[in-house]
């Protein structure tokens, strides 16, 4: 099990390097003009420009530049944001964390709803409850998260139930510890709902499908033949197997959430990686764009890694191959 984890981590490292390479090549398309443009901007001091030109050895051949770039990455030197006027690394950290909170909360809500609904629908197959859930799922998974976010904002504006975007209220600093958590939750509500609905729709259907398939498996009959209570048959024997394919999906799930989160973040003004990236793209702040991009990619790779290891933990067939 430990060796399996190490193996997966080792595979992740070249992935990250390739991501870095890709990002680097992408940057090459624009950095040339980028520095010229910067020189023309009166707000930016010549020393900064010079410092970064030195740092990235822009006068050297591409390969050397690439190695400098990667080396700098490991020192957490991501370049300079000319829009915010501070090194990128100072901007990214907090944003990364905020996006993570959002994506992770959505993941929990998604799983928390999809699995029970999926099981429920499978156990009451083709009855009224199942049909209703199925239709709602179609509707849910077809709803664009950004559209839902807009609708929710509109709804919030009319009812005042939720804050209209952002992450903290104006008076956040004055709140108690408890008050702050509650404030955060209120602000999380709209983006998390917007993000989760579509995921719940699709995950629920998959869960239902898995459950239905597993309930026909021989080992479920065996469990009954052993005289186990029905609850154990379903929630221990069947469920454990039905969930495994979902854990495989966890990796892609997380990436989809990350990706979707970016757009939703922008709409509700949640200060995360997505909003950061958008500002960066709009202001052509290249280093910020690339760093955000890399961060997104790394979050994804780590998420997948986690899912792989989780799967091995839950499915012995993978562990012992």
């Amino acid at each position, binding site marked *: 099990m430990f060796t399996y984890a190490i193996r997966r981590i080792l595979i992740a490292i070249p992935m990250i390097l390739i991501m870095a390479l890709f990002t680097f090549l992408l940057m090459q398309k624009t950095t040339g003009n980028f520095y010229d443009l910067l020189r023309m901007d009166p707000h930016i001091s010549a020393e900064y420009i010079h410092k970064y030109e030195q740092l990235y050895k822009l006068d050297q051949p591409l390969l050397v530049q690439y190695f400098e770039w990667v080396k700098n990455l490991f020192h957490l030197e991501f370049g300079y944001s000319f829009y915010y006027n501070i090194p990128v690394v100072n901007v990214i950290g907090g944003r990364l964390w905020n996006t993570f909170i959002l994506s992770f909360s959505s993941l929990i809500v998604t799983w928390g709803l999809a699995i029970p609904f999926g099981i429920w629908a499978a156990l009451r197959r083709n009855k009224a409850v199942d049909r209703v859930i199925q239709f709602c799922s179609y509707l849910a998974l077809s709803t664009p998260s950004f559209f839902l976010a807009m609708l929710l904002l509109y709804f919030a504006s009319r009812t005042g139930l939720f804050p209209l975007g952002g992450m903290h209220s104006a008076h956040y600093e004055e709140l108690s510890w408890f008050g702050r958590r509650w404030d955060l939750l209120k602000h999380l509500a709209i983006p998390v709902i917007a993000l989760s609905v579509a995921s719940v729709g699709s995950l629920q259907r998959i869960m239902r499908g898995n459950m239905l398939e597993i309930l026909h498996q021989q*080992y479920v*009959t065996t469990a009954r033949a*052993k*005289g*186990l209570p029905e609850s154990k048959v379903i929630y221990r024997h069947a469920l454990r*197997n039905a969930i495994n394919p979902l854990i495989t999906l966890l990796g892609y799930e997380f990436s989809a959430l990350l990706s979707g989160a970016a757009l939703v973040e922008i709409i509700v003004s949640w200060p995360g990686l997505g909003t950061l990236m958008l500002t960066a793209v709009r202001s052509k702040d290249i280093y910020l764009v690339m760093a955000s991009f890399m961060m997104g990619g790394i979050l994804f790779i780590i998420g997948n890694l986690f899912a792989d290891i989780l799967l091995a933990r839950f*499915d*012995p067939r993978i562990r012992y191959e």
Partner: protein
Amino acid sequence: MLLNVKNLTVKVARTGQILVNQVNFDLNAKEVVAIVGGSGSGKTTTAMSIVRLLDPSLEITGGSISFNGNNLAAFNNQQMRHIRGRDIAVVFQEPLYAFNPVFTIGYQINEVLVYHTDLSRRQRQTRIPELLDIVGISDPQRVKNHYPHQLSGGMRQRAMIAQAIAADPRLIIADEPTSSLDVTLQARIIELFQKLKEELSLSILLITHDLGVVGHLSDRVAVMTGGGIVEFGPAAQVLKTPKAEYTLELMEALKF
């Protein structure tokens, strides 16, 4: 008489199609009764109805299943649960699919002990390797921590049998227990069943299409076709001098 099945009828609920038609047979303590037939003859359905493990689309519409003085056909689910695993256990055909792939062998046998015996945790921990040993698995301490896919086919089938005898049942229903094994392994399993019948005073209801197994293991045999029993009697007699036409056909077809 341990088990007495009288006029058992099983139909498909929606269409009324009859799968088991007024079947009669009985089984005594320490006896092996085999039910033979081709596929679709209703033998598995008959056996599964005894423990009420039928597909939800089927229902028992008539007859009685007398076991230990009770009519199982009249039991509700709760009552059936107490019978299954404890008084009547099932050994399935393909142990790779019959075992849950994500739990160890030891865990799955342990479940039977937890729900049907009063053994303490410690006692169970010792009992499990004992059971594995009884069925002829060498190195039971190691095997009990293995997952089903890590065992060979023969060992898996033995483990399945260990799971079945764990709660000391009176009757074991064995559904084609040797069909997925090669010939040498088949012989071993038959030997094992013999041994268990003697040592544990077990009765076995054997479902099979293999007349060889019938000859070697069973005391009496019922021949089924089209949902009904055409012949029922002592194994030696039926195989030597079959009375029903179908039995002859079956023996011909299987080159017995």
